[in-house]
Every structure is written in C-alpha cells, then in structure tokens.
C-alpha cells in the first residue's frame, strides 16, 4: 500500500516534468524559417598542436545563433547576418576567442587556458555552460591538483571556498576530515559524497579498517591523485539535490584524465623528496625530571628520591622523543600514455608511490594502474570505460592502548617515557629494565618491532554506453563496480607493551591478529537526456533517470596469543597457545532512485534548474524507506541586460544566483531500524557459553535525515574578467536528525536511533581570482578563498538539552553536545592562575571534596555558588573555526613558474590532551617543560600548579588552546624548457621543479600540529590531540617529460 502511494507520487512528479518539456517545445514550434544572408565554412584547431578540435561552440556576437564544430574541427555557418560579423568561439579548457569574420573559409586557432566564466562546468549527471549554472559549484585549480600528495583529499584543503579539510594526523596514508559547509549530522555521515567518473562512492573508511590498530586507513588514498583531471565541489541544494538522499553533505565530482583526439602523448612524472618532523615538544631533561620527582615526594610528605648529586648526574638524560624520528624519503613516479584518433580516446597510466614515515617502521606504498577508454562506435553510439586498480600497503604506528581506544599513541608513549631511563644498553640492545615501566619493555623497541600492516586492494570500474535515439535525445546506461579488499596483519611480540586485544604483547606472550574485509558496491544508472534549443532562445535540457546501487561487505578478524617464540608472527597462528574468539560480520544495503532535472535557459540570461529525486533505502524503517528531495535554482546574467551596458566598463559580468532545496542523509549502518540481538559471554562449569540478548529497540519509523538549504550567490567579473569573484551566502537546517537519543536507562537501553533534533549551519564564502599581471612574458595570478561557517545545535528532542559523547572508560568527556552551541563544544573549567595562601581563608571558592593548598590551580566559580563543582564547567569554545582561507599566487616568467600557497584557519580550538598528561606530575612519566615554571614555595609567581602525585586531570581553559594557524602549505618553483629545445632532444615537453610543503606554520598552538583529530572523523570529538603522528615538512624535486 505504502509502496504504491510512493510510486504514484513519483509518477505524478515525472509527468509534470514531461509536461513542461512538451509545452516548451510546442511554444517554440511557431517560429518562421530564418533568412540566409551568409555562409561561413572553416575549421578549428589547437593553436599549439594544430590538431582539429570538435564540439567547439561558434556563436555570432549579439545573437544566440551558434553551431558546433565536427570531430575534424570543421564547421559551416549559415546565418541571417551579413559579413562582417563577430564570432565568439568557445570550448572547454580553451580561451574563448572573438574574431571579426569578413569572408569564408577561415581557420581558427584556439589556445588552451585555465578558467573563464564561459567554461563548461561538470555537474551531476552531465555538464553545463557556466553561464547557465544556478547552483554553487567550485572547482579546485589545476595548480593545487599538481601538489604532491598521497591522497587527493589532502589536496582539497583551501582549494574551494566552503570546504574544510583537516589532516587527522601525519601518518602516511592517513585520513582527513572533509566537511562541506559544516557538519549537518551529529551522529552519522558528515563526509561528502564522491563521484568518480560517474561512479558514486560514499567513502566509508570502515571498509578499509578491519579490527585495525592505530589510526584508521584512508580508503581514498587508494586513488592516484595524479590521475585526476578536475575536481568540482557541489555545495548548494540546486547542485546536489540530483544526488537526493546522498547530497546533504555536498558532492565532490572527480573526473580523471582522458586521452585527446589526434595527440599521442607519453608522459613521465617523478619526484623524490625528504620529509622532516615539523615540530618537537619541549620536555623535561633528566635532571629537571628528577627535581620534579623530588617535589612530588615533598608534597607526599616522603623523603626525596634523588639527592643533589644524583640529580646533577642525570644531566640531559635520554631523548625518547627523538629516538624514533629520522628524515624519511618520499618518492613517486608515474607513466602515462594517452591519445586518440577520429573514433576513440584512451589513457593508460601506472603509478608507484612510496612514502616512508618519519617515525621508524611506518610508511605508505601504493601501486596503481588506470585505463580510460572512449570509443565512438557510430555517430550515435559512444561507449566509455574507466578502470583503475590499486594496491596500497600501509605500515601504521601501533601504540599502547589509551584506555579502550587503540589510536596511534605509540608516539605519545615514547614522549611520556622518563628521560632518566636509558634507551639503549651499552651492548647496543634495547634497555628493558626501566624501573618506572610496568613491564620489562622499551617503547622504542615496541615501535620498531611491532608489525602493524594494512594492505588495501581496490578495483573501480565504470562503463557507460551513450546512444542518441534522436538528435536531441540521448540514452545513457552506466554500470560500474567498486571492490575494496583489505588485509590486516598485526603482531605484538612477547617483549613489547604494544596493544594485544586489551592487554599487551608482553602479557599475552606474543599476540597475532589477522583481519580481512571485502566490500563491494555496484551501481547501475540509466538516464535519458533531452537537449534542445528552441528558436535560438530557449535552451532546454531535461534529464530523467533510474538508478540502483547495491553495497555489501564481509569481514572477519581472528587473533591468537601465547606464542612459544616470535618467529612466525601472524603467518602461522597454529603455533599459538590460546586462540581468542574470532569475529565475522556481513552487511548489505541497497538504494533505488528515480531522478529528474530540467535546466532551462532563456538567452543564457535567465536560467532555472529544477531537480527532483526519490530514493528508497533499505537501511531505513519499513514505514519510511522512500524520501523525496527537490530543489529549484535560478540565475540571472545581469550583464546581458541592456540597462547594464553603461556599467560594463567597470563590471564586465554580473550574475545573481538563488537556490533552495532539500537533500538527505541515510548513512547509518545497515539493520539500524531492526530489533537486533547480539551475543554476550558467560562461564558455566568453567566453560564459555553464549548468551543472546537484544541491543536495540526496533524503530520502524526511522527515516531520512533532511537538510534544507538556501543559497544566494553573486558572480562578478572586472577588468575584462581578469578579476572574478564568486560570493555565496547560505543557510542550512538539518531536521529529523538521525540521532542516538538517550533513553532512561531503566528501560534496559542507553539510547535508541530516532529522527530527533535539528542542527543549523549558516555561512558566507567567496573566492577571488585575479590575473594581476598579464603580459606575454610575465604572468601573475592570485586566488583568494574565504569561508566562514557557524554551526549550531537547534534541538536534541524533548527534555534533552545536552549530552556528553561517550568518553574512554574512566575519563570525563571534554566535549558536550548542547542546544545553542556548535556540535562538539569543549566543556570545562575556567582557571584564574594559582591559589595564594590568602585565598584559602578569604572564602575564594575551592574545588569540592579535594583538599586544596596554595599553589594549586584556582578555578573560577562560574555559577557563583561558593564552591567549585562540575556545575561550574562551561563552554570553552569549539574545534570549528570562525573562518578558514587560502591564498595561492602563481607567477610565470618565460619558462619559469612559481607557486606559493598559504592556507589558514582562525578561531578553532584544540583540546591539548597530550599536554594534560604532560603537565600532570607522576612518579613514572616524563612531563612538559612548562612544569619548569611550576609553583614552589620559593617560586610563587608561577604559571603551573605545584607538583603533587598524580592529581586528577581536569579539562581547563588552559588546555583548550587557540589553534588558529597560517601554513605555507606549498611553494614550488619550476622551469619548462622551450618547445624548440625540448624538441631537439625529441621531447614535446620537459619541466623540472622543486617544492617545499609545510615550510612553516604560524600558530599559538603549543603542541605538534594545530591540525589534528585524535578521534578521526567522529563529529562530536573534533580537535582533540593526544599525540597523533607528527606533521612533516617535505622538500622535493621532480621532473615531468612528455614524449
């Protein structure tokens, strides 16, 4: 019953679309035949290669009459205009040319160029003339795409306004958090949708991480960034609603390089570089640490551990932090062959990338290959195939478990090791007899000997067939598959404290774990596009389609421990004394969609886009599988109006865009709406038995999380469009949040997944492109990008004003989700220096239940009840920046090119959890050098509290640091040899370059890197730093050859 209603709804909406299409056709059929006054024939060629170019649009200025060139570049123009007239010639990727024509035939040479308002923009399910675009779409410049990077998400940073990218850690091959216009959801799915050559990928790093230990692996890093030709970012509803249920977080469209007709190129690119650690922490040295221990002893009322002579003898002690660090090489090479003839285009490429980590025993390696092929079987029938396969091997940093979280804090363990312990014994072996360690292990040895390896294999193939049923009507059928396979291998030797399933390698006498996961996704899309121009005035493109995507994944992990020796590691579990319970899982989901879109333009001046998509997702409750998402966008090229003519000297182009629409999100795990049961264990008769009990209550009403977005935009061009500005303002409101809503615990459940609450994001963003100097010899271009987003929780459902995300066992959550504040706001105490002796008697509020003395931290009684309790904790800012921006300058002088790219973030805060550990004196761990300025009876004017034994760590304003930063992300200097010189050595092109990444960072943040997410993509716990893999500075040199 429900289903038939949905079908009816879809059918009605489609009929409306068709009716509009038919109506517009009828309206235009009343035109009278044009009078022919001139006939022009000619051909269009590339100005350098002299190869013919097809599909070039040639239009007569002042009219809307246009023709396109054939595949051999030829065209003929029969028009009512008399010679001479001005012809405007435009084509994707080429500079638009205006020439005055006074006779036939002619040859037109087009020059390649970077960008222009008349470019064609890649949209979902097609492309569009930029002048007709109604939505907010940004492209990442070629310049940024040329940066050396392991994964393309690294290159998006600062590339487009409105997109925020944070490198979660410096681990080679590690993940980045990507957010377009802020996070809409609290619990699920804030990452954008990726469309790679038409294939839709929701990047689920879970597929790349099966029981993985350490930072999670990045599924996007499987793709070779150099294969990418262009990246478009769709931001507003007009652009994304065609992706319906999946468009809420924005869409990133990736188009890979294709071969070009008539040119056969062999390209070889390579670079080699070295990486160094960008920053190290200031820690106590041996003598300073021993003095700290003595101070702790004094506060405990016990004799000092070390006498003065012993303290002095420790001297600088061991540099544990530096012991695992070294400069590490990075190397990349790739070879591609591309070209085409009259009927077909091809590109074949291969890539090898190898990045060693600056920390021992870590690194990332990738082999990949790609084949893109396109063939015109006939004038009406075209087939394309894009395939790539890659294999990447990541060696990750393990680390002792931080409570129940196994993130990459092996580096933190190293930092926290006391400097008085020797690293290496006199005979060169590792020192494992540190009396301060719980086990006879050595943290450097742990890093060097623990194997933590993740192999990812991916094949993504997409084929398409396009058939012109009529001149204006094209059927396109695509079928693609994405297969991701991961193999994880882990071994914690018996002499290490590396994590071993909640224990350590030492305790388990050797622990091996194996995991394997297979994820498959296939997609079939069938679209029908009707593209017609009526009377040279009405430009109509309609699209209807149907698509199905199916995903499934299976994985298993198994582990064993108690190995007689450490020789066979994970390669032969049968040597183990104890087998742990293995795990396996399987899941599948499908999404059926019906989509439709109308793009209509009158004179390329007044444009409207209507889109509609219906999605049925298997993951949602049985009552609400289907969702409907519509959008409308309009734009007006004001500069084409007569009244604007007087202003055109100042403003060349002015376009106003407005859009509104809805998109959805259903990125919850499959089976979330069902009442599922899970196994537990108990022991009876000394044997393991399985218990089965429910873990969630069924919610058959579970439905789409919906984001409604309004966008207003302005595109401006000045000085012959040498300066262009795109400005957008938006408001997004996400309702029916897919939220794990807390239930009263007496129900037997902590939470239930419901559609409750709402979040808003509002912001402005702009980009300015300027060709500052444009002479034949010297060229200087600048791109400035600015984005500001404000995120706010509007509601969390009835009776819920706030909740604390789950913190590690035994820890207090440093973040809160509270109505009125941004998601993941830091929550803690304000402090006001240290307590003075007088404060203890003059009624200064003190921390409840804990005896406080002079020299302890003085907390601020924010609710003024005379005592410091958890009720005094309050908003200490959030990890979300007030604004982010970037500035890219490129200079070309003759063959020399220079590019300087700055990127920054302002107003974001980071909870320095590592510093919290480092400022907390214990009798065993090393501490921060800030403790040198600790309170002592002799030094009362201090910044850090007196040394006591393991005080309770509190979340205070002191640790929520300003992590605003400005980074010189990339500087590159290149030289391209003159074509004649290159030709002399039988080359078409030859370029050398050197570049530096992360040359410097300006920040007040005191720890390793202000760009940090210890909790990876967890939306509620952004900006927490517990000693992630350190950031690096990279120097490299490369060359690029075209044969």
């Amino acid at each position: 019953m429900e289903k038939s209603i949905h079908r009816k709804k879809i059918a009605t909406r489609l009929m409306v679309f068709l009716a509009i299409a038919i109506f517009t056709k009828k309206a235009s059929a009343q035109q009278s035949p044009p009078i022919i006054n001139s006939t022009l024939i000619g051909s269009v060629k590339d100005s350098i290669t002299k190869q013919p170019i097809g599909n070039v649009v040639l239009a007569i200025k002042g009219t809307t009459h246009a023709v396109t060139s054939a595949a051999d570049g030829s065209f003929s123009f029969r028009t009512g205009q008399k010679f001479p007239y001005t012809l405007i010639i435009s084509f994707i990727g080429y500079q638009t040319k205006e020439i005055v024509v006074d006779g036939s035939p002619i040859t037109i040479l087009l020059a390649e160029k970077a960008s222009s308002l008349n470019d064609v923009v890649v949209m979902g399910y097609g492309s569009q003339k930029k002048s007709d675009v109604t939505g907010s779409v940004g492209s990442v410049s070629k310049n940024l795409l040329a940066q050396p990077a392991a994964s393309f998400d690294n290159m998006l940073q600062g590339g487009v306004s409105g997109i925020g990218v944070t490198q979660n850690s410096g681990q080679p091959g590690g993940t980045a958090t990507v957010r377009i216009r802020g996070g809409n959801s609290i619990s699920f799915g804030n990452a954008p949708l990726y469309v790679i050559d038409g294939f839709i990928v929701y990047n689920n790093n879970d597929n790349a991480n099966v029981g993985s230990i350490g930072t999670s692996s990045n599924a996007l890093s499987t793709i070779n960034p150099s294969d990418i030709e262009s990246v478009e970012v769709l931001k507003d509803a007009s652009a994304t609603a065609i992706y319906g249920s999946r468009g809420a977080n924005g869409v990133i469209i990736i188009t890979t390089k294709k071969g070009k007709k008539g040119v056969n190129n062999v390209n070889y690119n390579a670079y080699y570089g070295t990486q160094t650690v960008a920053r190290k922490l200031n820690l106590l040295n041996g003598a300073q640490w021993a003095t700290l221990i003595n101070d702790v002893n004094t506060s405990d009322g016990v004799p000092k551990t070390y006498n003065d002579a012993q303290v002095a003898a420790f001297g600088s002690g061991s540099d544990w932090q530096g012991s695992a660090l070294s400069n590490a090489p990075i190397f990349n090479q790739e070879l591609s062959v591309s070209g085409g003839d009259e009927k077909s285009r091809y590109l074949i490429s291969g890539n090898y990338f190898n990045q060693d980590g600056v920390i021992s025993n870590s690194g990332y390696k990738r082999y990949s290959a790609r084949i893109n092929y396109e063939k015109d079987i006939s004038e009406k029938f075209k087939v394309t195939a894009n395939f790539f396969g890659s294999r990447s091997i990541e060696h990750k940093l393990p680390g002792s478990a931080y409570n129940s979280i196994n993130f990459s804090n092996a580096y933190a363990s190293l930092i926290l090791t006391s400097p008085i312990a020797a690293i290496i014994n006199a005979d060169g072996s590792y020192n494992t007899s540190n009396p301060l360690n719980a086990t006879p292990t050595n943290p450097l040895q742990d890093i060097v000997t623990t194997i933590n390896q993740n192999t990812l294999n991916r094949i993504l193939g997409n084929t398409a067939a396009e058939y012109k049923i009529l001149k204006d009507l094209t059927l396109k059928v695509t079928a693609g598959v994405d297969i991701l396979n991961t193999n994880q291998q882990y071994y914690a030797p018996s002499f290490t404290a590396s994590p071993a399933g909640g224990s350590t390698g030492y305790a388990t006498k050797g622990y091996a774990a194996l995991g394997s996961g297979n994820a498959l996704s296939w997609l079939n899309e069938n679209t029908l596009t009707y593209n017609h121009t009526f009377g040279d005035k009405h430009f109509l493109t309609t699209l209807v389609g149907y698509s199905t995507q199916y995903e499934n994944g299976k994985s298993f992990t198994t582990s064993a421990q108690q190995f007689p020796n450490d020789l066979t590691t994970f390669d032969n579990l049968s040597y183990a004394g104890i087998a742990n319970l293995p795990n396996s899982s399987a899941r599948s989901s499908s999404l059926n969609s019906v989509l439709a879109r109308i793009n209509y333009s009158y004179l390329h001046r007044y444009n409207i886009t209507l889109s509609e998509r219906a999605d049925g997702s298997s993951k949602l409750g049985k009552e609400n599988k289907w969702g409907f998402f519509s959008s409308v966008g309009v734009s007006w090229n004001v500069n084409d109006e007569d009244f604007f003519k007087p202003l055109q000297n100042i403003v060349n182009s002015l376009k106003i865009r407005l859009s509104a629409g809805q998109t959805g999100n259903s990125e919850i795990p499959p089976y979330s709406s069902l009442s599922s049961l899970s196994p537990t264990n108990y022991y009876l008769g000394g044997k393991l038995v399985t218990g089965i009990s429910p873990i969630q209550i069924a919610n058959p009403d579970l439905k789409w999380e919906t984001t409604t977005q309004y966008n207003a935009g302005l595109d401006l061009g000045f000085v012959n469009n040498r300066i262009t500005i795109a400005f957008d303002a938006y408001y997004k409101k996400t309702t029916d949040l897919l939220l794990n809503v807390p239930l009263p615990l007496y129900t037997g459940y902590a939470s239930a997944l419901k559609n409750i609450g709402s979040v808003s994001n509002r912001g402005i963003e702009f980009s300015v492109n300027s060709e500052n100097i444009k002479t034949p010899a010297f060229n200087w271009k600048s791109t400035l990008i600015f984005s500001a987003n404000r995120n706010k929780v509007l509601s969390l459902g009835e009776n819920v004003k706030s909740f604390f995300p789950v913190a590690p066992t035994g820890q207090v959550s440093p973040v809160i989700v509270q109505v009125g504040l941004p998601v993941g706001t830091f929550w803690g105490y304000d402090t006001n220096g240290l307590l003075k002796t007088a404060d203890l008697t003059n009624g200064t509020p003190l921390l409840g239940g804990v005896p406080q003395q002079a020299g302890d931290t003085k907390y601020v009684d924010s609710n003024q009840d005379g005592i410091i309790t958890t009720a005094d904790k309050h908003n200490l800012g959030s990890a979300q920046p007030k604004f982010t921006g970037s500035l890219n300058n490129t200079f070309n002088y003759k063959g020399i090119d220079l590019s300087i790219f700055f990127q920054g973030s302002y107003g974001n805060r980071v909870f320095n959890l590592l510093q919290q550990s480092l400022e907390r004196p214990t009798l065993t761990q090393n501490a921060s050098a800030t403790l040198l300025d600790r309170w002592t009876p002799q030094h009362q004017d201090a910044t850090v509290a007196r040394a006591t034994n393991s005080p309770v760590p509190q979340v205070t304003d002191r640790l929520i640091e300003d992590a605003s930063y400005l980074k010189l992300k990339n500087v590159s200097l290149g030289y391209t040899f003159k074509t004649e010189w290159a030709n002399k050595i039988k080359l078409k092109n030859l370029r050398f370059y050197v570049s530096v990444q992360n040359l410097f960072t300006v920040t007040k943040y005191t720890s390793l890197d202000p760009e940090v997410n210890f909790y990876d993509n967890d939306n509620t716990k952004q900006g927490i730093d517990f000693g992630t893999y350190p950031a690096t500075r990279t120097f490299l040199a490369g060359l690029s050859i075209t044969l």
Partner: protein
Amino acid sequence: MKKTITHSIIWLLTILIFTTTACKKLEENPSSVIVSSQFFKTQSDAISSVNAVYSSLNSDPNGDFPLYGRQLNLLVENASDNQIFSPSNTNPDVRALGVSTYIPSNSRIQKVWQQLYFGINKANIAIDNVPNVSTDTVLKNRLVREAKFIRGLLYFNLVRLYGDVPLVLHEPKSVNIEDLLVKRSATAAVYQQIIADLTDATSLPKNYGTADLGRATSGAAHSLLAKVYVTQKLWPKALTELNIIINGGYGYALFPNYKDVFQKATKNGIEHIFSVQFESNLGAKNVVQNLSQSFTSFNTGTFPIDVPANKSVYELFSPIDTRRETTFYDSVYNAATGKYVVFKNAYTPYFNKFVDYTLSPLNTQAQSGVNYPVIRYADILLLYAEVINNINGPNAEAYNAINKVRARAKIADLTPGLSADAFRDSVFLERRKEFIQEGHRWFDLVRQGGNIYVDALKKIPEKSAVSSKNILFPIPQTERELNTLLTQNPGYN
C-alpha cells in the same frame, strides 16, 4: 547493417540491465544479525537468553568494568570505611565516591544503575518469552526461575542503593519516550516483587551437573531471601530461610582454609552459594575481573587503583588471623628475577583476594579467573548469629555460628557473655573482616540505621564530607532529565 547491429546491442543491453538490476528489494534480511522475530523459537534460544542474564553480572556491553568485578565495589566499598582511591586513580567521579562528595551526575553511580537495569531488562525478556518456546516444561520453568533469581538480586541491590526505584518488569516495545515514563515505586512494593521472584526461585534445583555449575540454585534463592528479610529486619522470616539453608540438606560448609574461598582451583566449592563466574583466557569479550588489578606491576612506583581506606583497615586483624594474609599483600614473588618484591608506601598493604597467582606473567590480572562470591556460607552463619541474637539474644546457637567463622580464621572464640548490643557489634565487626572487597560493607553499615554509617566514615579523615544523605545514592541526573516524573533522594539536588 552495422547500424542495425549497434541498435540491437544497445537495446539488448538496456533491457538486460533494467531487468536484472531494477528495483533491488529494500527489505532487510540480515545474515549476520539475529532479529527479535527470529528468536525464542528453540530450546537453545531459551538457554541463551538466560545466559545473557548471567552475563550482565560479569561483563559490560561497552567494555566498562563489570558490575561484579569492580563497578558495584566502587559504590559499596569505596563509599564505605574499607576502601579509597590511590594516586593512580584519576577519575574524579571515582575519587568523589571515595571522599563522599559525589553528586547526581556522577558517572559511576549512573553506570551501576545502568548495569543493574540492563540485567533486569534481560531477565524480563527471558521471563516473558521463555514460556512461549516449545520445549520441555521442566527446563523452561527452571530457566524462568534462574532469571527471576537474578532479577531479584539486581532489584535488591537497586532498592538498597537508591531507595524507591522504577519497577520495570517487561521489556520496552517502543522508542517513544512518552511510552517509557514511569514513576519511582515505593521501597515496599519493590521488596514485594523481590520476595515474589526469589520465592519462586526457591523451586530451582539444589544442584546442577558439572556443565551447569554456576547457575542459581534453590539454596542461593533461600540465602538471598534470608538477606532480604534481614535487611528488612523481618527476623523470624529470615530465620526460617536460614534454617532451610543450614539444615535443609544442602551440604554447605566453610572451607577449612579461608584462602580457598578465593582460589581458582576451589571455585564453586562447598562454601560458595552463589558466585559470579570468571575464567582465565577463555577468549570471552568484555569480561575482565578488574578487582584483580590490585596487582598491576612489580614496579613499586605504581599503585593499584583501589587501596585500603587507611592503615586502620589492616590493623583490624590480629597477626594470627589467617584472613589477614589472604585479604592483603605487601610482597609478591617475581618469577622472572626469582626474588620477592616488597611494596611499602602510604597505601600498602594492597588488597589481595582477587589476585590470581596462577597467571603468568603475573601482571596479566585482567584475566583473573577468581570468582566473585555474592553469597557464601560464612555470610549465612554470620546472618544466623545476627538473627538469633535479635530474636533470642546472644545464646549458644548465636555464639556457635560466629565462632565457626572465627575458628576457620584461626582466631579465638568470641568473648562469652556479651550483651545483645555488644554481640551485634561483634557480628558486624566479624562481617567487616570476613568480607573486605566482597561488596558487603556499605550495605552492612547502612542497614544498621541511625548514624552508624556516617560515624564509621567520619573515622577516616578523607571521608569527613559524609552526611546523612549518603545513606542513599542519588538518582542519576540524566534519568531525571529524561523522565521528569522521577524525584531525587533527600539532600541531593
């Protein structure tokens, strides 16, 4: 010709794709997850559902400390005069429990509440659904009674810790909060339900075969019922139950050696009436015996997270009391070096009962296989002495019962001729010494009423913030925010 072929190809392709893939079904039929409609069909489903009830005692679904195995002890030992936190314990909420400064938002108080109710929910599900499974009625009845025993045990903990509590007896069927709001039920009503469940559970078998050792027995039900009556000061009823346990042919007795109560080799032995089960290295998920973390390292610079309140706890014991060396340790043999490591600092001696000395290396104590004794025969004997004293005064029977416990500890009989009050105090002192770390002390102090609890804690300087409100724990803050019908206990806000 060529055109026709291409035509045919494309149409065939289109038809092929449309017919094979169009309209992938949206219904979910998971292969990896059991959904409730598939469950409670077979005998083995029924057994598994009750196993899950037991597992709520020794494991936490989120990998937190288990209820028995640390969480409950954080309330009833840390908030008693037996135990406090060490410097290694950094959780402010745990520290607050140690110094009586806890507030309604204390995460540990909430966690205990959660674990108790999660277990109750699993029991409710089993009690409501097991009877519908088509299998042997005798087995079904037994399984339902086992679930009722656990439900009774968990409600008994709840009512003593929190006072009036929501009395939930069926699983929730909806995620709508309006359908889930309930008021606190009066303590008397909760006790009525506990007594009904436990009375039904007294029909459980007296014994099980080897494979089922660890399940609740009728002896366990009678024992718990006796404790319920003692707590309510219903002495004659308590006496009836105690007589059944002692004289009903159950064969319970004290181990000759106190140490054997806490040994892996002697688990589920003659003295154990009901124990929460732990095992070493059986690969279970989320089962960790955290009380065994009293030993973590041979490194003398680190501390166990929970330590005795102060030296007075150790000094309760006379040197000849064999319970002293089982309850505490101050040196441990290090097999790797062949030497004893001596621990001597402000927090020593450390607790010892749950340290599993059969493990190698010794600091893998999370794997401790030492059971947690919920009720053991020494408890019954001491309750018997207390009940007789309350009914008849300190007669020979009462003396006989307490002296059995003392004799096993190799200490002299209790001074004869004590007054009833003095005898009662002696029984409570004996209980304290007998059950350190076994989750009795807070209950024993509070059930005596008056200022006993507050006075006892005031003797420990760190716990001086204690006040009369602390005879109940606060209703967790978030519960009251989600359900405004819930009132708070006196003195908390």
